[in-house]
């Protein structure tokens, strides 16, 4: 089964233009025969929104998102938007649409607020890490910084996920000390580590383009449960990346390497509970 990543460059704060842009990428993905197209973090709005966040926010059932729902009758779609919750909190959200409906929303849990990031100033954190059924298998979504916290992919894998979707807006930085982009090297290491040690597919969908002088580096990739690179996009350029997801490979890898079967979430739970002074009984 084929899936696609739209390594695109959203316009900052221009939701109508971005919707048109999504339609184009969705059509291109459909033409490849892919069953799903994954867009990067905040693909419908752009990333460094600052005070614009409130202007572009929409509820999960906002009519502005209807074109995405409509397009999902033909192909599954995962795209990013600013969600205004029922109690009017703003969240960085990634939706999963299928069969004409929004099936799942993940709200970014870890909001980086340091260095070049200021997520925590403008958004509230999500507090759920739920798996859901995607066309590529049981899945969990980790938005950008979420993936840097190893509890996130761990909890998804422990919850039955065989695919982790990792939409990102990762800025390229760290060019000194002899070459390779510092962030790119870190992201590739994470993707491969999680994929191989949790025996899952990692679908890293990073954007390109510039916002206020900051370059997003692209390099989207799909890593298999054996740690192999199934497909990798170019850096700094738009690209529709298509990769095969082979559910049989998950089964083979988990037979050969049953780390996940032998994992003890109950033990993790007990250790953490005791540390927090909560008495756990059978």
């Amino acid at each position, binding site marked *: 089964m084929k899936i696609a990543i739209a390594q695109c460059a959203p316009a*900052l704060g221009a939701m109508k233009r971005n919707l048109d842009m999504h339609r184009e990428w969705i059509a291109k993905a459909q033409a490849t025969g892919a069953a799903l197209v994954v867009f990067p973090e905040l693909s419908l709005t752009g990333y460094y929104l600052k*005070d614009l966040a409130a202007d572009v926010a929409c509820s999960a059932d906002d009519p502005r998102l209807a074109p995405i729902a409509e397009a999902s009758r033909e192909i599954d779609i995962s795209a990013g938007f600013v969600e205004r919750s029922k109690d009017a909190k703003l969240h960085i959200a990634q939706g999963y649409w299928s069969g004409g409906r929004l099936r799942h929303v993940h709200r970014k849990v870890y909001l980086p607020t340091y260095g070049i990031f200021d997520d925590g100033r403008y958004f509230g954190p999500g507090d759920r890490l739920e798996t859901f059924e995607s066309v590529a298998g049981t899945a969990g979504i980790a938005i950008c910084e979420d993936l840097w916290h190893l509890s996130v992919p761990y909890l998804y894998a422990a919850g039955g996920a065989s695919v982790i979707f990792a939409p990102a807006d990762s800025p390229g930085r760290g060019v000194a000390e002899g*070459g*390779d*982009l510092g962030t790119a090297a870190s992201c590739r290491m994470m993707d491969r580590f999680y994929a191989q040690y949790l025996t899952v597919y990692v679908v890293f969908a990073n954007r390109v383009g*510039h916002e206020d002088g900051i370059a997003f580096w692209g390099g989207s990739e799909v890593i298999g449960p054996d740690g192999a690179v199934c497909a990798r996009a170019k850096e700094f350029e738009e690209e529709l990346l298509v990769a095969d997801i082979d559910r049989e490979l998950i089964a083979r890898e988990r037979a050969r390497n049953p780390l996940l079967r032998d994992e003890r979430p109950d033990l993790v739970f007990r250790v953490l509970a005791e540390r927090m002074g909560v008495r756990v009984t059978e």
Partner: protein
Amino acid sequence: MTVDAERAAIRMSPDDLEPLRIDEVLVRKMLVSFLREETLKTGATRLVMGVSGGVDSAVVAALAAEALGPENVLGLFTPYRTTAGRSKADAEAVARAFGIRVEEVPITAQVDAYFAGLPKVDRIRMGNKMARERKSIEYDRSWPDGLVLGTSNKTELLLGYGTQFGDLACAMNPVGDLYKTQLRELATSVGVPKGIIEKPPSADLWEGQTDEGELGFTYAQADVLLYHLVDRRVRPVDLAAAGFDATLIATIRERIRRNHFKRVMPLIAKVSLRTIGHDFLYPRDWEAD
């Protein structure tokens, strides 16, 4: 580029410039796409810049020509009567190397007219006036569809070695995050003529002026120290322990502090509920829908 690329531990020594090394191909790609995207987003179609005959503006000229095409880049060579004789030939060499148009607009008449009749003027003050005169010409020549590029490097910006609203003024600066040492490395890779890379850096504001003579230390010394101090956040006490000169550390830290005003927007006194720059915070790349 491989998944398994490993990094060696960083060495920290005043003589070791290795940590400053960049991948020129990667940096060039980032800067060219920065110039292209950030220009076109504003609706501008041309880039205007000062071409002094020095290495910094030569690199910016190369990047600008690659980003928007040489026909859309205008270089301005703006000599004063004390400008070094070879600067003009070097500015022309930049024009030839990258296929851009470089126009000569002398500033002697207006600068001299302004200072005529004033008692003896400090040369720093003269230099500041020249830098602002040049910038006003660049802005004028950018009208109505061009953007003015800055050419100050990270070393100059951190040390405050530049004139506020003079050479520091610009719509955007592609080289402001590269130390002088890194910029020289990039210069070689983008094809800046060798003679320009090798001549001693100078603001060329008075005869015999050199950057390193005026600063009192070399760019190599400053860059390696700044890299560890700023980029790697190493504490001064640890720099001194690694062999960096304590006086140089103190001098450079004080220059960074004293000149910080040149790196930020002017202060606005807050009195209302929502104030530009304080809590009215929109991205500059705020795009139309």
